[in-house]
């Protein structure tokens, strides 16, 4: 019962934050909304006994990704509010229809291939501790893990390249 309460609270927070993210006019509030959603998801991970993933979720998303977002928002100017008004006719309505249709389709598909609650909640088979996750990560998935290392290195190089080459336009932000 306690778990259900926690779930309802944080699921609500996640949904509200996510909707807020989409609807907020100011990108900073969008970022805050996403931050809230990510935090709630981290709590839900704890609820699902995935402690390590939860910690990484906070460190990576809240700690690094969202900080970067905010950094960039501030770098390129927060007052740059987008002009509203649909580019495609009836865009909002179409968007609403498509999103709700997608949600319905996913739920329908899920119902067709639903997970058959084999584990009653509260009796976890596994514990998402660092030891358990890392056994799997460095055992079965070593090669994949190493390739993500490559991926990150390449991403870092690409970012540096983008920042270095392409400064032919005079820019005032670089002096920050």
């Amino acid at each position, binding site marked *: 019962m306690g778990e259900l309460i926690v779930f309802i609270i944080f699921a609500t927070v996640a949904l509200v934050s996510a909707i807020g993210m989409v609807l907020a006019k100011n990108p*900073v509030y969008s970022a*805050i909304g996403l*931050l809230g959603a990510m935090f709630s998801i981290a709590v839900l991970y704890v609820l699902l006994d995935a*402690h*390590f993933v939860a*910690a*990484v979720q*906070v*460190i990576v998303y*809240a*700690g*690094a990704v969202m*900080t*970067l977002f*905010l*950094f960039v928002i*501030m*770098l390129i100017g*927060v007052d740059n509010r987008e002009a509203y008004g649909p580019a495609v006719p009836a865009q909002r309505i179409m968007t609403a229809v498509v999103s709700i249709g997608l949600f319905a389709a996913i739920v329908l598909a899920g119902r067709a291939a639903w997970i058959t609650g084999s584990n009653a909640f509260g009796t976890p088979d596994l514990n998402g*501790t*660092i030891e358990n996750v890392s056994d799997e990560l460095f055992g079965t998935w070593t090669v994949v893990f190493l390739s993500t290392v490559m991926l990150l290195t390449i991403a870092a190089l690409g970012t540096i390249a983008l920042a270095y080459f392409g400064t032919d336009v005079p820019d005032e932000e670089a002096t*920050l």
Partner: protein
Amino acid sequence: MSIFIEAAIRAVFVFGFLLVTVILLVWVERKFVSDLQNRVGPDRAGPWGILQTLADGMKSFFKESIRPTNVEVALFVAAPIIALMTALLIFMVVPIGAPVEINGTEYALVGADLNVGLLYVLALSSMAVYAIVFAGWASGSKYPLLGSVRASAQMISYEAAMGLSLVPVVLFAGSTSITTIVEQQQGTFLGVFPAWNIVLLPSFVIFLISGFAETNRAPFDLVEAEQEIVGGYHTEYSGFQFALFFLAEYIAVFNISALTAVLFLGGWSGPVFGPAWIAWVWPIGWFLLKTWAIVLFFVWVRASLPRMRYDHLMSFGWKKLIPVSLAWIILVAIAIGIRDFGLPWS
């Protein structure tokens, strides 16, 4: 006793402990700096001015909180609270003494013993960035914004170095639980030297340096460099809200000191004397002694070193600290591999 009530008691205790500590800490800093600078320092409120911090706190509490016109109200109000919250929450995982036995039950003297304790610390210290970013942005003014952009870049950079410097500690202890790390530092080498993690000297140094940067203390206090950007992110804050930032900063200093003591100087480990009913005090004493030593070191550095230039700060972080940490991680990993699995050819 219900688990919720126990948790609440622990939280209240941690909060109170930190509050008292900070009041002391501000006074100690001012006194110590003035001694180093051949000044007298505060000496009016109470004996040796010991009540000065309380007086300042009262003053700011009753002062009017001025709110400039074009602030984003919600974030402007939330920022100092976030700052204080993260600072308080970090201390939750720091063990301040050996486990104590009351009525046959053993209680760990720690807010919460998490198996991902160190990750928790890193996660929360990355949260601390948001307080500064939000404060700077919500102020709707140029200098706070500049200060917060500086702050976010600086803290992200040094957090990477800090996280990397902790990896050898984790490798050494084989756990990310802070309690386990402290227990692993019990005992001695060769019967003489305490078995502290300070043997991981590069890690210790890097952790300490990035601790300065994370708490925006001199010589890395560019975030609030008066000569360039007035007060940085808290330029527009006043009264009680400013006091909250102030409080948060000093708690952060104490947190970093406590973490240094716990992770590298053996935490509460030390010799224990006397009968059983008094013996439990010793570990707490040792912990406080070590922590305050580091705090005094922080103050000493602040009084001694000038502020760094911003580009120097960034290149120092990325081009020196992080490569050194990486090299050190590799060395430690090899050493531990040899310790656990023997030499590769044996």
